[in-house]
């Protein structure tokens, strides 16, 4: 188990280095990023001054080492637009994005797994039909469209929830539903099919032959094995929700990272874009690592091999 963990941590560090390289060189694909960051009509002296200030006139390898060393110190450079360190801006916005993604994911998990397990255990029942409908709509309805419809019904017509911002405790409801609906659809389908499959396994028959109650069979035997399939998808969904909430944060003016990224891209604020890209990649890698640990905890067969 410890060896397995160590291997995975080392692999993740290499992956992070790879991300660093990609983020660094993407901006320099044209050779000199000055032309990307400074307006076309700016005079030559101003360009030169900018190049000097950003250190773009130094050798590439020196720039990269400097960039890497900066990140190790927590220095991601300054935002061109906001004129303050990119890290500060990100840390300021991060909690809102985490909060939104986590609420969306929990909402999706609780509803999807409940419906998926009950439906999968009783194929053809009303709950099963509901689950299948959710699965279909969750995966086919685009979230930006759903967001607009939710605003129309629940904010404009009924007035139950605010349509934008993060000023009240219920502000999170509409963006979380819009954001998590797709994940919910996928999780319902996955839970249902995993339960359907596991119900027919020989070890479930053994569990039944032991005379333990339906509930315990569901909780101990079916769910634990079904969760193997769910863990990896939940983690992918979470990283998708963290990184992919740009539309939803923009539509609902949610003060999060996605919203900031949208502003940064609009304003050609490259240091900020770089920093956000690096942060989101960092979370995805960290999540993947956590997933593998969770896997090993659930499935003893993974723990001991490798």
């Amino acid at each position, binding site marked *: 188990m410890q060896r397995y963990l160590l291997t995975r941590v080392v692999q993740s560090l290499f992956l992070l280095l790879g991300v660093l390289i990609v983020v660094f060189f993407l901006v320099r694909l044209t050779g000199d990023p000055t032309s990307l960051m400074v307006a076309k009509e700016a005079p030559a002296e101003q360009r030169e001054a900018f190049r000097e200030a950003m250190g773009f006139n130094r050798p590439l390898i020196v720039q990269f080492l400097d960039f890497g060393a900066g990140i190790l110190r927590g220095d991601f450079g300054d935002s061109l637009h906001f004129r303050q360190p990119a890290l500060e801006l990100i840390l300021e916005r991060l909690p809102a994005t985490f909060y939104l993604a986590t609420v969306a994911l929990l909402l999706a998990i609780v509803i999807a797994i409940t419906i998926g397990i009950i439906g999968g255990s009783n194929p053809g029942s009303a709950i099963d039909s509901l689950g299948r409908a959710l699965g279909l709509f969750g995966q086919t309805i685009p979230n930006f469209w759903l967001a607009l419809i939710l605003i129309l019904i629940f904010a404009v017509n009924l007035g139950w929830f605010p349509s934008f911002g993060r000023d009240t405790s219920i502000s999170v409801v509409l963006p979380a539903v819009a954001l998590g609906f797709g994940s919910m659809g996928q999780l319902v389908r996955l839970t249902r099919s995993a339960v359907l499959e596991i119900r027919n*396994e*020989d*070890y479930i*028959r*053994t*569990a*039944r*032959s*032991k*005379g*333990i*109650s*339906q509930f*315990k069979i569901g909780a*101990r*035997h079916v769910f*634990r*094995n079904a969760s*193997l399939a769910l863990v990896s998808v939940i983690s992918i969904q979470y990283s998708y929700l963290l990184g992919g909430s740009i539309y939803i944060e923009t539509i609902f003016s949610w003060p999060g990272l996605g919203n900031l990224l949208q502003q940064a891209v609009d304003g050609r604020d490259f240091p900020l874009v770089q920093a956000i890209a690096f942060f989101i990649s960092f979370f995805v890698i960290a999540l993947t690592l956590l997933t593998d640990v969770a896997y090993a905890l*659930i*499935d*003893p*067969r993974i723990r001991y091999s490798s």
Partner: protein
Amino acid sequence: MEPILQVRDMVTRFYSVDGVVHAINGVNFDLYEGETLAVVGESGSGKSVTMMSIVNLIPQPPGKVEGGQAIFSYGEMAQDLLQLSEDEIRHVRGGQIGFIFQDPISSLNPTMTIGSQIAESMTEHLGFSASEARSKTVELLRNVGIPDSERRFNAYPHHFSGGMRQRVMIAIAVACRPKIVIADEPTTALDVTVQAQIVDLVKRLQEQMGVAVVWITHDLGVVAGLADRVLVMYGGTVVESAPVDNLYEDPRHPYTIGLLKAIPRLDATGEAETEELEVIEGVPPDLYQELTLCPFAPRCGYAFDRCWAEVPPLIEVGVQHGAACFYDVERGGPRNGS
């Protein structure tokens, strides 16, 4: 001696999309305390479905037990298992009737320790605390021949070989000291050398605990060394029921006779050594049809008009010996009154 299990006229059907499968068509048998009853027959003859039907283990839907009785009696108690609700029957299952299944690889939950899989039914049926169940489980693991049982409690199924896993299955089956253990082809998936060990283990536990064992198999060799009595099944019915020696020496049903002639003998000498094995011509009955005739009639050399018109009941042909056949093979003609 009173039987602890009396099964009468049990009927089980499966309602599939292609039609109704008549899996069990009126099965009758008794099981006595502490005995070993072998149930033999080819695939689809209803061996497993019979035993699963008794304790409500067949998949429902599509399966349904549609008639009959299964009277389970111990001490003063007697109850018809087929009339119990799922919540009542599940305490019989695991508590009074244990199961050993064919494939020990797939029959154990890969994500639970073997110890907790054994202890689970003790806490459920015997009301043991977790620590009581644990110490009983360790004792039981030792008893089924798993060395270093204290440590092995926390092992997972994939740490074990097939034979060891089957020992774990056996421990699960006898965990609550049941009255009956149903072993559904427990040696089929194992190496021949391991098979013998498993047979010996079940025999030893049976003597220790006085449990009755129903051994479902299609291996007539295992039957000869193990069983007290034998049920031969064909087409969802019991065609012959006899003490094991009678069955081998004096089979009375044409199907049993055919089966025994199809077994190669290592001790054959002289002419018999070079004789070809006989085969039973024809194919097993179509279970989509409702049974209105002797299920073996289409393949039987002795069949006469009555065999095509009605289903023969189990007719007493000797002490504890019954055969579901209208033809008297001993006398060489239709049975008296037929």
